[in-house]
């Protein structure tokens, strides 16, 4: 590392590094009144579509003037409406990956990623070297010479992520960073992103509507609904004391949709490749239904269990995602089933991608809704 690099690191360590935001934006038919803070590390801004997440990104980046409030990053005032302070976007040192990639069409992927360093005065060869490095880290090295028009949505999104990360920013704003990745690429992309973010020293804000993404990438979550931040905390706080039904509903459950069928005196929910015994309540066979299964209600074992659980499903491990205090293990069943287990269980069972397991679910743990 160069002496200059040490200097920057030292300056960051000296300041708090935190982002404090009090955002007031009034637009026709929509009001944003979001207060939250984020310390260095990864924070997720989680909310349903239309909650104002992208407005938060635009406001923090300086692309949308606040009508009130202030933004302070690493002790530096970016915007303060009452004091009349408003730094333009280029003076904020943000790295933004917008929800749509916004790559510059006339430039190759490599030059798009090199754009930030170039704009900050770094010579072209060095800027391109850094850009190539970032593309490589996000599994997009082979795209370097391509132009945006020739990239798929997922590829363009990875290039846009590399561009945000290469900007040498104090604050990273990543708006739905994995939304365009197809299902097969998603786990790999999430891992690459998580690795890239673990080396990042500033504040990274990941904006998402997907609680799994929020909980697997971020240590802390701020939940935004209808323009307001309704809850901030870690995953456990969200699960234990959800501040709204939306938080409660999305704190990491399996949702299975299918049709009820009568079979050998019991009622099963047929959902793609799975047949789950359920308690139908007042739902009759033939009805469309949705089952909600908490990942914590699923028991994993190496051998077929001899237990009271009537649902035993065999499958291979598709992915292992580290959560905050628990591990989320997803099986390659159709649809995939996710179970949460402790680190000790993970180690004890020797679970790795590809391990063949049995998942057991008690009928009484399945909540059934008409769909």
């Amino acid at each position: 590392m160069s002496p200059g690099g040490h200097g920057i690191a030292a300056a960051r360590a000296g300041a708090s590094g935190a982002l404090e935001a009090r955002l007031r934006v009034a637009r026709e038919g929509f009001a944003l009144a979001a207060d939250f803070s984020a310390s260095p590390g990864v924070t997720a801004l989680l909310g349903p579509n239309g909650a104002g997440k992208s407005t938060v990104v635009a406001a923090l980046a300086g692309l949308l003037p606040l009508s009130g409030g202030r933004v302070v990053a690493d002790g530096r005032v970016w915007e303060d409406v009452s004091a009349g302070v408003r730094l333009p976007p280029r003076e904020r040192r943000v790295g933004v990956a917008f929800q749509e990639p916004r790559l510059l069409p006339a430039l190759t992927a490599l030059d798009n990623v090199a754009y930030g360093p170039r704009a900050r005065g770094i010579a072209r060869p060095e800027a391109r070297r850094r850009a190539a490095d970032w593309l490589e880290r996000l599994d997009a090295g082979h795209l370097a010479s391509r132009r945006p028009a020739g990239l798929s949505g997922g590829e363009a999104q990875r290039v846009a992520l590399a561009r945000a990360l290469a900007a040498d920013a104090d604050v990273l704003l990543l708006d739905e960073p994995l939304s365009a990745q197809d299902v097969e690429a998603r786990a790999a992309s999430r891992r690459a992103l998580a690795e890239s973010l673990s080396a990042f020293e500033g504040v990274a804000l990941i904006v998402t509507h997907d609680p799994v993404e929020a909980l697997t990438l971020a240590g802390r979550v701020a939940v935004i609904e209808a323009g307001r931040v309704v809850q901030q905390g870690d995953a456990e706080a969200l699960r234990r004391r959800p501040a709204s039904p939306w938080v409660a509903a999305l704190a990491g459950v399996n949702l299975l949709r299918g049709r009820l069928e009568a079979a050998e005196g019991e009622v099963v929910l047929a959902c793609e490749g799975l047949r789950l015994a359920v308690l139908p309540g007042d739902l009759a066979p033939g009805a469309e239904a949705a089952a909600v299964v908490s990942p914590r209600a699923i028991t994993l074992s190496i051998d077929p269990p001899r237990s009271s659980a009537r649902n035993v499903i065999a499958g291979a491990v598709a992915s292992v995602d580290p959560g905050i205090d628990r591990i989320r293990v997803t099986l390659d069943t159709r649809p995939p089933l996710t179970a949460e287990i402790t680190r000790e269980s993970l180690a004890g069972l020797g679970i790795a991608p590809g391990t063949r397991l049995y998942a057991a679910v008690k009928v009484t743990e399945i909540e059934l809704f008409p769909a």
Partner: protein
Amino acid sequence: MRPPFFVVALAAVATAFFALPLIGLVAEAPWGSVGSALLTRQVARAAALSALASTAAVGLGLALALPLAWVLARTRFPGRRWLRGLVVLPMVLPPVVAGVGLLTAFGRRGLLGGTLDAIGVSIPFTTAAVVIAATFVSAPFLVVTLEAGLAGLDRRLEDAAATLGASDARVFRTVILPGLRPSLAAGVALAWTRALGEFGATITFAGNLQGRTQTTPLAVYELLQTDAGAATLLSVALLAACLVAVVAVRGGLFREPE
């Protein structure tokens, strides 16, 4: 709805109406005397002046049109529509009226005549007047195409560049200018051909002095009274120049590489 037969027939008549004069030019031109008719001092000087004046008019036009198009496309102010109307008026104005207007503005006894006289500048009946006349009638094409081009740009790309630390100048150079390339090419081709063909405003404001203000169209007009064959050949040459300019743009010479 597909056009019925009689509409197709009328379209054929229209095609003939547009094509016949062009066919006439080529068919009636005395091709045997190309050398003697076109390799004259008068034609050479007229052609050189036309090339120079049209190119200068496009350059001057760009300097005037780009700021104007930018303001029209990206700002809202009362009277914006009136300003746009004013700017495009020279496109539909009879060229001779444009020439008289230029005389009343920049002529000896015009609005700015006294001021220009005081600094020792006299514009009418000079090569500068040729360029000004050509600019006046052709620059509106640049304003119109550039404004449309600017309005069609995705401003979110400019936002993205700004968040990456780009200065306004860098955003202009790396985002706006590349995005404007197609409209720029179309506007330049239109303006250049319009400037090349300019007649009425030029003869009124700049006169018809061989070697100084006689452009190719003026030379065609003069030759028509003495040597109709040479006038026809020179007309074909002008037609070819315009054709090349239009094909260059339409044919994708300036298109974005995929």
